[in-house]
C-alpha cells in the first residue's frame, strides 16, 4: 500500500545523519521533524533567519516575531540563533546546510526540478527554493509520485519552468525511493505492498531497477 504523507516523512527521516543541519520546505518536508531518530543530533534551519528551530509554541506563548519560512509561529531550542537573510543564505549557498528537503511539481531524470510556477496560473514565487537547489550538495525531493489526475511527476524532461538544473539527488514518494543515475531514475526501495510494476507505470521518465532493490523498512 502506498505511504501517506507521514509515511513519506518517516522514510525521509532515515536519511538524516548525526550532525546534519537541515532545511525543510513547506508541506511533507515539514513533517520530517516529527521523525528524527532519537540517537542523532540535527538542527533545523529556516531561511527567514533561525537555526535550531523547535516545535510549535504552546497555546498563548506564540510570538509574532518568531516564525519559520512558512510564516508559522515556532519556538527555538538550546543553542539556537537568529540572523539576517543575507547570513541565512550564506549558510545555504556556502553549503553549510547539509541537507535540503523540499517538495516539487516535477522532477526530471537528470535531476532538474520544477516547483515554483505554472504558466497561466497564479505564480506564488520561488521564495528560497532556487537558492536552495542551486547550492545544496544533498537535495531530497519529497512528493507524490503522480499528480491528482494520475499523471507522473517523474519525467524525462520537466514541462514546467525550472527551479534548478541537475540538482536533485534523491526522490522519495508514496511509492518509492529513487536516486538520479547517469541515464535515468534508479529505483532503490519500494513502499510496503507496492509492486515494481506499479512504480514503473507511475514513472514517465526512464527508470532503472537497482540490483538490490528492496522494500522500505521502518
Amino acid at each position, binding site marked *: 500500500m502506498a505511504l501517506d504523507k507521514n509515511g513519506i516523512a518517516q522514510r525521509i527521516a532515515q536519511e538524516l545523519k548525526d550532525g546534519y543541519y537541515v532545511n525543510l520546505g513547506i508541506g511533507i518536508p515539514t513533517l520530517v521533524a516529527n521523525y528524527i531518530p532519537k540517537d542523532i543530533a540535527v538542527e533545523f534551519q529556516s531561511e527567514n533567519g533561525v537555526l535550531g528551530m523547535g516545535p510549535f509554541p504552546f497555546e498563548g506563548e506564540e510570538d509574532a516575531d518568531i516564525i*519559520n519560512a512558512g510564516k508559522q509561529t515556532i519556538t527555538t531550542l538550546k543553542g539556537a540563533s537568529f540572523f539576517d537573510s543575507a547570513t541565512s543564505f550564506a549558510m*545555504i*549557498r556556502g553549503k553549510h546546510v547539509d541537507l535540503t528537503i523540499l517538495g516539487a511539481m516535477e522532477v526530471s531524470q537528470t535531476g532538474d526540478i520544477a516547483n515554483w510556477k505554472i504558466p497561466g496560473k497564479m505564480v506564488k514565487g520561488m521564495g528560497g527554493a532556487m537558492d536552495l537547489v542551486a547550492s545544496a550538495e544533498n537535495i531530497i525531493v519529497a512528493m507524490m509520485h503522480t499528480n491528482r489526475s494520475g499523471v507522473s511527476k517523474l519525467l524525462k524532461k520537466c514541462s514546467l519552468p525550472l527551479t534548478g538544473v541537475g540538482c536533485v539527488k534523491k526522490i522519495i514518494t508514496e511509492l518509492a525511493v529513487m536516486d538520479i543515475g547517469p541515464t535515468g531514475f534508479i529505483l532503490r526501495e519500494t513502499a510496503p505492498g507496492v509492486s515494481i510494476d506499479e512504480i514503473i507505470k507511475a514513472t514517465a521518465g526512464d527508470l532503472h531497477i537497482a540490483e538490490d532493490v528492496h522494500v522500505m523498512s521502518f
Partner: protein
Amino acid sequence: MINKTVSTVSEALEGVQNGMTLMLGGFGLCGIPEKAIAELVRLQVTDLTCISNNAGVDTFGLGLLLQQKQVKKMIASYVGENAEFERQMLSGEMEVELIPQGTLAERARAAQAGFPAFYTPAGYGTEVAEGKEVREFNGKMHVLEQAFDADFAFIKAWKGDEAGNLIFKGTARNFNPNMCGAAKITVVEVEELVSAGSLDPNQIHVPGIFVQRIFEGKDYEKRIEQRTVRSKT
C-alpha cells in the same frame, strides 16, 4: 554622536514621491515597517516600485498599498498570500519581478556594501537567468546579479538609539539589516527608542552610519500570519 532622530512618521518620510523605488524589510508580516506603510497609504504616493520579500496580505502590510493601487511594480521572492496582488498581476495592472530570496537579500547587501554586481549559482538554467550573463567558476555555472538601486529603505527594528544603532528581535530581523544603507535614505521605525549610550556597542546589529532617520512607533499590531500552536495537555 550624530543624532538621527525625527519626531514623527511624516517627518521620517519627507521626500517620498510618486515613481520612487522603495525597499521594505520584513518576511511575511514579521518585521515589517507598519508605521511607514501606513504613512505611504496616507500620502497616496503612486507608481511605486517596491522591493520586499513578500507583498503582505490583503488587509495588512504591503497589501494596504496594493488596495490603493499605489504600486506599479513589485520585486519579491514570494507573493502567495494576497488575492488583490493576484488580481493586479494577472490583469497586468501591476508588473511583477520574482527573484530568488537569497539573491534578493544579497542584491540589498551589495547596494549597502558598494558592490555593483556578484555571481551567484541561484537561478542558473531558469527564467531568472534569462538575459543575464552566466559564467562558470570552479566547474559550476553562476548568474551575474546587480545591486539594487532604491530611493528609500523602510526598516523596522526592535530597539534603536539616537545615533541610529539598531537591534532586532527574533526572526523579525530578516531582510531589515541588509536593506539598511542600501537606499539613498534609510528610515527606521523602532518599538523602543533609547538614548545613545544605552545599547552595548558590542551588541549592535546595525551601526547608525547606515541609518538616516529613526523614530519610535506606538502600538505595533504585529499580526501573525499562521498561528500554529501545541496544546499544553
